[in-house]
């Protein structure tokens, strides 16, 4: 018998597309959440982190498998949980106090008792004096404090947070993180576990007692390990950097087996089912060009972590750009080191027109969807085809949001490479004729 609060048993989630296709968002997964820990769930965008969180809280029912709270299915009795949302999800027409009182109202707490508890919680999160303010009068950080207060006032057994700091500026996020840790470590909150979804690696290493890294397509656990560092953690310390690097490595190599966790040896996890279809990272051509220029100017290679720091970019935003450059054969990524290739150098040093040509060559050589579009357009008599066609192809492999993103990225690349043009009004792709455009040849 385990002392776990929540046990997820082989939970799996499918979404049915409007056209009837079923997309697997979460592959069958087991997970235990036990008391006394902060757990961080990390993963790239669209890997199903929010979906997983919603299944654990009972907001969404798994397609198969089950979620148990203290051994009982979550559907039987709503668990005592609270969620802090990235978007705050406050009610704009209620003032701060009313927002915090609302969950108590739902529990039928009497007015006087309700007010007392709400005021006490507002005091804990540092919001006294703001009781009668409306959310729109508050800054983002203050809004999220209201979100915290609303969550803590119900004294949840497990506090869930879905990217709670992502909508805040760096400094505010840091302050709130520190305050959260303080509350947690001083046991001022009546909560036995915290489950944080994030895509910020440092945030995870800073907060978590246990980190779970989710892979994509379908979502599955790629690594699950403990971080035994004492609080407060120093970002510059060797151990901290080791953990950060380790997570980077897992996340930048979606196909490889995760290496050993720093300081421990773990058996390799089960091999995930691989998806055959090539997935485009969501990067725009301007970003790829920029990255290659900076790499080239900086001597041709750089550490991923330093590169992110240099560009003042979240690694999560930088990763897709690097992945794109890798797919196009302009760069390689090994062990967290980015290295520009000969093609990459040629590209970085070319002028605008030549860049387009090089990009076109690389794209047609390496990118399956662009090859496919080109050959279809060439085969058609009128050299054009409706968007729908490619949507249909992508629909087979991705969820509808992802299809949109895949399509948008393919459009961005293909138009830059002058492989085709997109006519949004008629929703059609038209084969480009770059030669005709560049040299307006014989005129009648």
């Amino acid at each position: 018998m385990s002392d776990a609060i929540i046990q997820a048993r082989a939970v799996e989630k499918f979404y049915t597309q409007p056209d009837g296709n079923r997309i697997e968002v979460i592959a069958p997964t087991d997970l235990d959440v036990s008391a006394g820990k902060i757990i961080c769930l990390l993963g790239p965008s669209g890997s199903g982190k929010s979906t997983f969180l919603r299944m654990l809280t009972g907001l969404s029912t798994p397609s198969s498998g089950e979620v148990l709270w203290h051994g009982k299915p979550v559907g039987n009795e709503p668990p005592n949980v609270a969620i802090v949302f990235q978007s705050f999800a406050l009610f704009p027409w209620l003032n701060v106090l009313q927002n915090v009182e609302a969950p108590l109202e739902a529990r039928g707490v009497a007015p006087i008792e309700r007010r007392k508890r709400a005021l006490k919680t507002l005091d804990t999160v540092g919001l006294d004096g703001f009781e009668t303010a409306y959310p729109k009068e508050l800054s983002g950080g203050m809004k999220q404090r209201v979100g915290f207060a609303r969550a803590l006032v119900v004294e949840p057994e497990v506090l869930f947070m879905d990217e709670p700091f992502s909508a805040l500026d760096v400094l505010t996020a840091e302050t709130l993180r520190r305050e959260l840790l303080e509350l947690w470590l001083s046991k001022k909150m009546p909560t036995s576990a915290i489950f944080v979804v994030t895509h910020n690696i440092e945030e995870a290493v800073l907060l978590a007692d246990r980190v779970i890294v989710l892979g994509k397509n379908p979502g599955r656990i790629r690594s699950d390990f403990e971080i035994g560092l004492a609080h407060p953690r120093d970002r510059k310390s060797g151990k901290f950097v080791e953990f950060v690097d380790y997570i980077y490595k897992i996340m930048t190599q979606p196909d490889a087996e995760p290496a050993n966790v720093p300081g421990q040896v773990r058996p390799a996890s089960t091999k995930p089912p691989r998806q055959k279809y090539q997935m485009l990272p969501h990067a725009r051509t301007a970003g790829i060009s920029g990255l290659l220029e900076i790499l080239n100017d900086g001597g041709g290679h750089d550490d991923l972590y330093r590169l992110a720091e240099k560009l003042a970019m979240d690694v999560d935003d930088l990763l897709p750009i690097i992945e794109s450059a890798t797919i196009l054969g302009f760069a390689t990524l090994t062990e967290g080191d980015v290295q520009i290739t000969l093609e990459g150098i040629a590209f970085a040093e070319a002028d605008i027109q030549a860049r387009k040509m090089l990009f076109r060559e690389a794209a047609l050589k390496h990118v399956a969807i662009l090859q496919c579009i080109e050959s279809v357009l060439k085969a058609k008599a009128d050299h054009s085809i409706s968007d729908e066609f490619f949507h249909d192809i992508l629909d087979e492999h991705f969820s509808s949001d992802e299809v949109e993103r895949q399509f948008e990225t393919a459009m961005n690349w293909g138009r830059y490479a002058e492989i085709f043009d997109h006519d949004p009004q008629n929703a059609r792709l038209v084969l480009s004729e770059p030669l005709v455009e560049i040299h307006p040849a014989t005129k009648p």
Partner: protein
Amino acid sequence: MKKPHGTASLTPYRLWSLLPRLEPARLPDLLMFGAAIALFYGLIMVARTWLGPFTPQVEISRSAWALPAYACLSLLRITIAYVLSLLFTLAYGYIAAYNAKAERFMIPLLDVLQSIPVLSFLPGVMLAMVALFPSRQLGVELGAILLIFTGQVWNMAFSFYSSLKSIPRDMREAARIYGFSWWQRFVEVELPYAAIGLVWNSMMSVAGGWFFLMACEMFVLGSRDFRLPGLGSYLQTAASEGDTRSILWGVATMIAVIVLLDQFIWRPVIAWAEKFKVEQVESSDAPHSWVLDLMQHSRSLAQLKKKALFPLRESLMAYFARKHNATKSESVKSPRNMWIARIAGIAAIAFISYAVARVIAMLAGTTHAEAGELALGLGATFLRVNIALLLGALWTIPVGVMIGFSPRLARIAQPLAQIAASVPATALFPVVLLVLIRLGGGLGIGSIVLLLLGTQWYILFNVIAGAMAIPTDLKEACSICRITGWQRWRKLILPGIFPYLVTGLVTASGGAWNASIVAEYFHFKGQTYFTAGLGATISRASDSGDFTLLLASTMVMAAMVVTTNRLVWRRLYRLAETRFRLET
């Protein structure tokens, strides 16, 4: 020396000072008190007439002194119709938004109902109501109210439905994870979220109610002549007698009522609804209302709120919370509910098939001549509606852009235009008609003017809004690049206002089709004026009680409106959303 007591000391001044002191702060309370007494008196009077015996041939007085009472009666009908619309809206929108199966046919149904002209409902509704209460005035009254209801309800229902559908997922989930009962979710999430859309649509609906008042309060059905005392019947009587003085009195009264409504109802409601705006930052120029300020300072209202409203709210909230927490487990669909739903579904299908069969049987009775008339009428009305739209667009685009670009002009012109817009075109028809007849123009052209009168405002308001929404930096960029004259119109203004223009035109087009019924067919000084058109056919069929023709012509019109919506307006909308969106 002692002052003498007795009557001698009762100087006027002393008398005055003996009266309770009238402090400015009490003023709101006194006003509220007066309003309550007036309301009570009104209720008694209305109850007496409505429950009185059926008197179909009420003599409609043309004296100006009758107007206040008539205005109150009309207002009462509109109010009751509005309350009914609101209830219907909440129920219909709620079911359509939360029941995926029901949604699939409820929303297209709404689309069709919206395109059926109000007056086509008239004979059916009236006869049904009179049959229901044959011996009481109540029947006719209810009929008139139901007609006004059919003119008000559809856009409100649609607005509520789409608001419910667009509540952000996180907000919904917050309500769920914190265990809100449905009541708490309704009053703390759904209703507030939908409030602003509901308020604006309510305003539009009530304004539309005035438009059909004239037709609903006085009409002939076959051999029967129905009259209800009210502003609409007053205007219609005055119009058919050609009594210009009375018409002007009536129109003046209507404008007064509309202005009062605006000041005492809509403005306060809009100012109050401001807090339901879902926005990240506070807007700088929030609407204000002096009435709302007054009400918020009223002590008796504050007392009422504290003593009655708060406890009521608390106990409702607690009651539903208890109920919600008692049924904690996942709401499993009880087999009984399933059966009820199934039976209801089967009954609905049976009824619909029966109705369709009857309609087909009836339509089989249409003669060739009638079919020809319908086709011709459709063409004529189609032309008229589109000419009216074109003329409307031609004058409102330049004027609207001018107003929208100049904040000073907008401050003066917008309230004026709002009042002008709220005057129902039907009330002005007689005046326009008099002028037209004097000038020698026929109703064929005259009805275009009448359509224009009714629908140009929708275009004007939207153009003003569009012009105001064009960002200043774009305007500046144009002047820096020396883009002026026609180029400025083509590059900046027309694309900028396009989405708004489309919205205005859609509303105007729907309104124009509906208004053609009153514009193409008119009783005046004992004569009937009409011109070939689908609207005229509907009116005539309704007048003469020819149900087959009424049904056929109504279906043609509804089909026409739905088809143009699908084929033209929806495409333009999409174009506006994709190509011409000014993103900031």
